[in-house]
C-alpha cells in the first residue's frame, strides 16, 4: 500500500511541476495546490499507513497507528489552504491591475540599467 501511495505522490509532484512551468498564472496556482497535496500525502505515507488500532486509550490493542502524521497534515492543509486562497486573490488583483496573466509579460527590470 505504501508503494502505491508513493507512486501517487510521484505523479502528483510530476503534474505539479508541469503545471508550474507553464506561463498562465492560473495553471501555476493549480500547480502549487497539487504540489502541497503531494507533500501532505507524503507525510501520511512516511508515518506508515495503518499499523494497528486507533490510538485511543480505550482500545487495548497490541499496536497502534501513529497519530502524529495526521496532526501534521491537518496543520499543513490549513496553511496550504490559506496560502492558496491568498494567491488566488493576489492573482486576480494583479490581473486587474496589470492586464495580463502571462508570466512572460510580468518580467521586471526596474533598476537594472
Amino acid at each position, binding site marked *: 500500500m505504501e508503494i502505491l501511495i508513493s507512486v501517487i505522490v510521484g505523479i502528483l509532484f510530476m503534474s505539479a511541476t508541469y503545471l*508550474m512551468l507553464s506561463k498562465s*498564472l492560473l495553471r*501555476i496556482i493549480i500547480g*502549487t495546490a497539487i*504540489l*502541497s497535496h*503531494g*507533500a*501532505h500525502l*507524503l*507525510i501520511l*505515507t*512516511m*508515518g*506508515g499507513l495503518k499499523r494497528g488500532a486507533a490510538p485511543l486509550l480505550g482500545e487495548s490493542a497490541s499496536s497502534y497507528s501513529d497519530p*502524529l*502524521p495526521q496532526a*501534521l497534515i491537518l*496543520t*499543513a492543509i490549513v*496553511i*496550504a489552504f*490559506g*496560502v492558496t486562497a*491568498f*494567491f488566488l486573490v*493576489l*492573482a486576480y*488583483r*494583479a490581473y486587474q*491591475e*496589470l492586464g495580463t496573466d502571462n508570466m512572460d509579460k*510580468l518580467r*521586471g527590470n*526596474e*533598476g*537594472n*540599467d
Partner: protein
Amino acid sequence: MINFLILPILIPLVTGVLLIFAAKHIMLQRLIAGLSALITVIVSVLLVKKVNNDGIQTLNLSNWDAPFGITLVSDMLSALLVLTTSIIALACVIYSFRGIDEDREKFYFYAAVNFLIVGVNGAFTTGDIFNLFVFFEVMLMSSYVLIVIGGTKIQLRESIKYLLVNVISSALFVIAVAYLYSVVGTLNMAHISVRINEISELGQPGIITVIAVLFLIVFGLKGAIFPLFFWLPGSYYAPPAPVLALFGALLTKVGVYSIARTYTLFFYQDGGLIQQLLTILAVISIILGIIGAIAYWDIKKIVIYNIIVAVGVILFGISAMTQDSLIGAIFYLIHDMNVKAALFLLVGIMAAITGTSDLRKISGLIKRYPGLGWTFFLAALSLAGIPPLSGFVGKLLIIKGGFESEHYWGAGIVLMSSLLVLFSIMKIFINGFWGTSRDYEGADKVSVKRMMAAPVILVAIAVFYGVGSEFVYPYISQAAETLANPGIYIDAVLKEY
C-alpha cells in the same frame, strides 16, 4: 521551567490582534505599535540576562514533556537574535511613523509587522522542527501582506513571484520534515539530534545526507544562498523602505539561523560532503553578490546585493565549524541584521528626498543633509568591517577560523569581499553625497530630521557593538558554545527524559 521566553512571541501577537481593531485610528495604532515594540525590546533584554545567568531556558507547552510536546528553547543564540529582531522592529516601527504613507498605515501595516515579528521570534525560539515550519509560515504570510500592501503595479508583479518561490519552498520543507520523521520518528530538535547520532554510529546512511541537502534547499531559498537567490533582488526591490529594511534584516537571516541550527545540531556527524557543499555555496554566494553590488547603479539594488554577500560570509563561518569561526559567524550575523536595517532605512530617506533610487540622478546631498551623510558614512564603514566598527570583529574571527580549518581560498575571498563591499557602498556615498548639489522636487515635504531617529539609533548600536566588543564577547561565545557542542542543547531540552 519558566514562561518568560514566550513573551517576545506573545506580545507582538496580542498587539497584532489589537491593531486590527484599531485600523482606522492612525495615531492610536502608532502609539500601540510603538509601545509594544518597546516592551518587547525590554523583555528580550531581560531574557538575554536570564539565559546568561541561568543557562538555556526551555518551556514545554501545555506541560507535555519533551520530546512529546512542542518545546520552546531559548539558548543564548536565539535570545540574542530575538533581542536584535525586537530592536529592528522598534526602529522600523518608529521610522514608519514618517516613512510610510497613511493609506498603507490604514490597511493593517502595523498589524502585519507585528505578525511578522511573531513569526521571526518564534522561528528563533522554537525547538520543534514542525513548529519551525509553522512559524516560517506565520512569517511568510505576513511578509506576503507586507510586500503587496499598497498595491502598486511593481509590487503586485513581484509579490506573485515571491509568493510562488515561497510556496514551493514550503512544500519542500514539509517533504523534508516527512522524510526526517520517517527516519528518526520524532520532531523535537534535540531528540532528532540524539536519534541521528544513534543511527550514524556505523557510518551515516545516505538518507540523512539527502535530508540534509533538502533542508539546505529549503533554508537556502529563504536565506538567499547561491544558486537559490535569484528571486531576491527583484522581489525586495518592490516594497517601500521600512518593509525592505524588515525583509533585508530579518527574513534572510531566519534562513541562515535555521541552517546554522540544523547543521550544527543534526548533520554535524558527517564532516565531509555536506560541510564542503556548504562552504562552496557560501563562497560562490559571496562572489556573485559582490558582482551584483558593484555592477548596479541603483542605491536599493546595491544594498540588496550586499545581503547576499553577508549571507555568504556568515555561512562560510558556520561551515568552517571551528570555535572561532562560529563566534565570528554569530558576531557577524547580529552585526549584519542591525547595520542592514540601518542602511535600508537611510537609503529609503535618500530615495524619499530625491524621488528616485537611480544613483546617477543623485548628487551633492551632503550640503543640505550633513547628518544623513555622516550617518550613512558610519553605517557604510561598519558594513565593510572597518575597525573599530561592528563588522570588524566578526569578519576577523571568521577569517581566522577559515585559516585554522585550512579553507585558505574561502578565507581569502571573504577578505577580498570586504574591500569590494566597501567599494560598492562608498560608490553610493561618493556619487550621492559629494558633487554638485541639486534641487529635488518635493524634497521640502520630507521631514528628514524625524525620519533620521530610527537609523541613528541603529547606527549608534552598531558603533557600540563594535567599540564594546569586549563587553559583548562573553554573550556571543556562550552562544557559539551551544552550537559547537550540541550536547549542551540536548541536555537542556531532554533533562528529564
